[in-house]
């Protein structure tokens, strides 16, 4: 798997399109035309009704009967005012990261009673969750506070209210109109009189509006606010959503990196309990500004490539400014802007960036010719509408660039510190608990609210499902399930469907003449046992220039050519892109690019040749192995997204669908999202063609369609449920009147904070591949489960979360879980189990190839082959 794609393959909803800002305008207000064209995100919170007698501030008083549980679907806002007060406490973002209130399980009939599987052996697990304990009969009391005469200033309102501290108590949270108390006042409506310092009387009316049970959404939000307060009390620094300890940094001077250890946390209602999920988090910071980075890049690339290189390396990175504690994502670089440009301040006066930063923050800008960075704020309600302009010299880089991720040595140095084995990870998480338990102020705060955290991590039992046997040409292979890898066991065995290499090209440069010949010889050695018939390649020697490669391909490819192999002398992306683009669109044949360096080590040459032979075979439509799939007449679909941060910010969805019973052949298409168009429209078209193709292969239509949907960002679940799933259903309906297949849609999520540790006596280990968890840490309102499918050599394995958001299949949870795990065995580029079902990984590879190199839909002639591997 390549790490490059990971960061970008994360979901971004289509409505978050961005536009270019006006030059130099820091907070210029502009209408964003693209946003007007796009349909509104359905997850926009409902407008908060203004109270008729309200005094100007927007607020929301809930006159909900006390016993009625609050179940508003979206926009679970405590109040506009409270959010204002506690914005920083809440991480400064209003997005619903936890997809609260998307209640999908209630629509799936057959899992109302139980959503748990049954098969496999029991395993004792520990997870990184702490139970939140509260007093029995605990509730949070929400009051509305009114003033007569009306008082404007929030602080004055507080001061007046807290003249009655005896009545209210010391523990409270008040935003100027809504008051939360841990205990109930004697009366439902309490009236008190306060005196201002100049002797005026103010009547204050405190009205109980809500009695919130511990599990109410408002309460959960409230816990999170309290917890963030606690983390701040522990003197942890907030960066983005997490909290870090700056006092014990890990420095990696070789790469100018500084790593801050810290924690990520969230409190949510899980299956049985409200729990705090806490995990270790590391923030990679760099003691280098964006300007420093640009300087050093300038020395490394040619002048004319400099701007592109900057864009490629910088766009999408998160920067931290020197003068405040905010992080911004770089969305663009404005080369026409510079620090001498002016912007309009909130008070209307014009000032240049140089003067502003000097005056406001005493920050000297030395390079007056640097370009400026553009960041589009995500939060609509931000006080500064429009794009934010940042000065490179005043921004520190955080995180890793693509280049760093590809730097094996750097990642190795880094992983020494950040990749913790299970026991160490558990210890680090335990440190958070210790901090909380040993800090008096924190304990007091918690006690005042009547809350506490369990002192030990949650432990429970999971199941390890049976390992899958690998079937290859009638032979069944057993392998060590601990390692989840069968490359040794199946080496040299005949493939299910070998494709002959009768007519193939090998293009190389003169310098790599020997390497090319060695490759051919090695292929001759490894292919016979696989059953691949191979003839001598047409060898073409070219200059090391992109045009030379393209000309050679143009001249030599005939309709009979099976595959074109290009031996590249460097990993220059433009050459690779040009070759791939030509061979995927204009002249559609499978292609294999190999870096000469990969073949250079004699000791690994045979292993590499084996791998290349397998990959080439897949690309030509061959099949390698399978596992037992009992389900008949089913089409499995995998979808993943790639979000292009450079070229026009288009998003690409990769779509693959299984074509046969053994899941060895996959049809693929992609949807390129253009401006003003929803990705899902393209997906609908993909599904339609996939069904047609299925019909061609099977002479019937599938009776079940199971969609594995990857690339869904936090907070996007509602969009998927209310928009994408109906479109799929529509599409199925449109196929024919009598056609009514069963549809299952499963959201696949890899980026999680959940960790499982297997308890082996006193020791904690990684749970073995095949571990399934569908209790305790799942969510009651979802039909969801976790699977640990892969094995890792070091560090902690991370489970994958599967959320079945739509299901008319009536398949038992156990069957869905087993099928999912089986599909994790079917990715042909890796002789082992992977983290996600193969269709997701194929879709990911496809979207990545299109997004990175091809930028448009490849020729459909290739669509039945795994050409994108």
């Amino acid at each position, binding site marked *: 798997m390549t790490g490059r794609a990971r960061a970008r393959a994360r979901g971004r909803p289509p409505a978050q399109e961005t536009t270019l800002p006006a030059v130099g305008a820091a907070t210029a207000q502009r209408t964003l035309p693209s946003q007007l064209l796009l349909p509104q995100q359905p997850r926009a919170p409902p407008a908060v009704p203004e109270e008729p007698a309200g005094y100007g501030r927007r607020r929301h008083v809930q006159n909900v009967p006390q016993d009625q549980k609050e179940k508003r679907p979206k926009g679970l806002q405590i109040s506009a005012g409270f959010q204002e007060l506690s914005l920083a406490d809440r991480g400064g973002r209003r997005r619903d990261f936890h997809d609260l209130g998307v209640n999908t399980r209630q629509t799936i009939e057959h899992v109302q009673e139980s959503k748990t599987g049954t098969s496999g052996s029991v395993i004792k697990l520990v997870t990184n969750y702490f139970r939140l304990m509260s007093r029995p009969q605990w509730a949070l009391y929400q009051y509305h506070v009114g003033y007569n005469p009306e008082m404007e200033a929030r602080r*004055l309102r507080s001061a007046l209210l807290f003249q009655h501290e005896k009545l209210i108590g010391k523990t409270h949270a008040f935003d100027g109109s809504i008051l939360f108390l841990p205990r109930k006042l004697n009366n439902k409506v309490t009236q008190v009189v306060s005196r201002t*310092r*100049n002797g005026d009387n103010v009547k204050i009316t405190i009205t109980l509006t809500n009695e919130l049970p511990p599990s109410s959404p408002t309460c959960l939000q409230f816990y999170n606010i309290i917890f963030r307060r606690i983390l701040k009390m522990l003197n942890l620094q907030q960066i983005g959503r997490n909290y870090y300890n700056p006092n014990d*940094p890990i420095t990696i001077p070789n790469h100018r990196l500084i790593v801050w250890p810290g924690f990520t946390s969230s409190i949510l209602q899980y299956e049985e309990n409200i729990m705090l999920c806490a995990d270790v988090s590391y923030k990679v910071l760099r*003691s280098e500004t964006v300007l420093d980075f640009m300087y050093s890049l300038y020395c490394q690339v040619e002048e004319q490539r400099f701007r592109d290189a900057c864009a490629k390396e910088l766009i999408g990175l998160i920067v*931290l400014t020197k003068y405040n*504690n905010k992080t911004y994502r770089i969305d663009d670089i404005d080369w026409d802007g510079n620090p001498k440009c002016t912007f309009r301040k909130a008070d209307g006066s014009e000032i240049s960036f140089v003067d502003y930063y000097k005056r406001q923050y005493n*920050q000297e800008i030395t390079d007056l010719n640097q370009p400026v960075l553009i960041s589009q704020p995500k939060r609509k309600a931000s006080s500064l509408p429009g794009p934010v302009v940042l000065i490179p010299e005043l921004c520190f880089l955080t995180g890793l660039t693509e280049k760093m991720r590809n730097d094996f040595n750097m990642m190795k140095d880094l992983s020494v510190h950040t990749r913790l084995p299970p026991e160490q990870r558990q210890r680090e998480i335990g440190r958070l608990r210790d901090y909380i338990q040993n800090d008096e102020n924190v304990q007091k705060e918690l006690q005042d609210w009547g809350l506490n955290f369990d002192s030990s991590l949650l432990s429970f039992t999971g199941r390890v499902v049976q390992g899958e046997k690998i079937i290859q040409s009638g032979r069944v292979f057993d392998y060590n399930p601990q390692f989840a890898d069968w490359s040794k066991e199946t080496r040299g065995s005949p493939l299910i469907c070998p494709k002959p290499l009768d007519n193939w090209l090998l293009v190389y440069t003169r310098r790599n003449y020997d390497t090319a010949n060695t490759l051919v010889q090695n292929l001759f050695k490894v292919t016979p046992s696989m059953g691949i018939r191979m003839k001598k390649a047409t060898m073409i020697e070219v200059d090391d220039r992109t045009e030379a490669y393209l000309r050679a391909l143009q001249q030599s490819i005939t309709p009979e050519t099976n595959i074109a192999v290009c031996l590249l002398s460097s990993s220059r992306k433009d050459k690779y892109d040009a070759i791939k683009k030509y061979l995927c669109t204009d002249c559609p044949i499978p292609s294999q690019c190999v870096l000469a360096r990969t073949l250079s080590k004699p000791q690994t040459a045979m292993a590499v040749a084996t791998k290349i032979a397998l990959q080439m075979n897949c690309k030509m439509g061959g099949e390698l192995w399978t596992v037992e799939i009992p389900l008949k007449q089913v089409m499995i679909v995998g979808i993943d997204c790639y979000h292009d941060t450079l070229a026009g910010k288009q998003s690409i969805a990769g779509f693959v669908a299984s074509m046969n019973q053994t899941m060895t052949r996959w049809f693929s298409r992609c949807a390129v999202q253009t401006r003003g168009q929803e990705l899902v429209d393209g997906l609908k078209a993909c599904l339609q063609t996939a069904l047609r193709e299925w019909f061609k292969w099977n002479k019937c239509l599938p009776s079940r369609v199971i969609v594995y949907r990857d690339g869904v960002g936090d907070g996007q679940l509602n969009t998927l449920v209310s928009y994408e799933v109906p479109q799929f259903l529509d599409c199925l309906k449109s196929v024919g009147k009598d056609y009514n297949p069963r549809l299952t849609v499963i959201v696949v999520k890899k980026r999680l904070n959940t960790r499982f540790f297997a308890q082996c006596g006193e020791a904690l280990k990684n749970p073995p591949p095949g571990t399934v968890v569908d209790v305790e840490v799942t969510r009651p309102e979802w039909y969801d489960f976790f699977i640990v499918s892969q094995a890792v050599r070091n560090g902690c394995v991370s489970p994958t979360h599967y959320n079945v958001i739509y299901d008319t299949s009536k398949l038992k949870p156990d069957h869905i879980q087993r099928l999912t795990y089986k599909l994790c065995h079917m990715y042909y580029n890796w002789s082992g189990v992977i983290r996600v079902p193969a269709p997701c990984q194929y879709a990911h590879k496809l979207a990545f190839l299109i997004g990175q190199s091809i930028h448009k839909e490849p020729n459909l002639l290739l669509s039945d082959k795994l050409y994108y591997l």
Partner: protein
Amino acid sequence: MDKNFQEEQFRGMIKFTPPLSNQRYQFVKDLVEKYKPKKVADLGCADCKLLWMLKFCSCIELLVGLDICESVMKEKMHKLSPLPVDYLQPTERSLTVTLYHGSVAHEDPCMLGFDMVTCIELIEHLEESELKKFPEVVFGFMAPSIVVISTPNFEFNTLLPGLMLFRHPDHKFEWNRAQFQSWALETARHYNYLVEFTGVGRAPSGMENVGFCTQIGVFVRKYPQTSGFAQSEKSSETVYKMVFKAVYPSLKDEKYLQNTLVGEVISTAQIIKRCLLERLMSEHEECNHSTTERKAQLQPCFSKYISKLATEKSLESFVNGNVVYVPLKTIFSFPKVNQLCGTLERLRKLIAGQVTLSSDGYALMLSIEYENEEN
């Protein structure tokens, strides 16, 4: 206590741009830039806005806030914590920010030895008894070199329509210019200070005769700093309660100095290594191939610098096997490194054990393997 939104109510006729509260703070900030005090205290610091602005002034090493209301201070006190940048790029100056809960009518030894004490929109909130004690506490006990006091100018109120009596319900009084000036002059005389009057918030043209909206008195002590001995004599019991304390990372702290220096040394050595390897490679390529797509463009300033250094034989970096040797002396000659440690001996001492040195301790060793990426 609240002073910043008091003017908000009078939006009708007069609007100050920037807001008057900001103008007051900017006035203090300008004064700090002028006098460069090291220790500054803000009495009645409320939401710590002024302290937050002042923490960016590089002359200040001790910043203290005092307020009678703990909850107001606590609300935004975390804005006074060090920023990530303060850890990433520690500066030479040390800075400590402390907040105390207490009254200006009480003396606490933690307020001794300040260069500047500011009381922005404070005195009008004091009860008569507190106001009486105030001069003795600030001018007599604390006795800083400079005191800044601002308060509303009652005469200006005629321009603020809809005002009943005072600008804020908590104001105990609002003085006209004569009242403030006579109080200030009397105080200055008694405690041996010089006072000058000014203000912020100009009246609209034609009505300038009412004076500034906010009147300010800047007091400068006439006698030199009292000796430490005299101060300790004055010290009494601590009565203030510390609410918040943040110590900023500084290069004066060896831990931060060492981290910064090691980082700088290694990155300097990496640059030298890169330049050296590129030079060797381009020489090598020229021998073999005439067609090279890629340039061997060195960072101009560095290449010149290095070639200049290379004239001295002992400062030359060289490659031996898979290792590049960069003499410490060469690294030391780079201005940033030089500035951080001062002497070569100190450099050696600080980086000992943190980097790989050649057996004679003469050069830094860097492995070449990293440079294999050919992009």
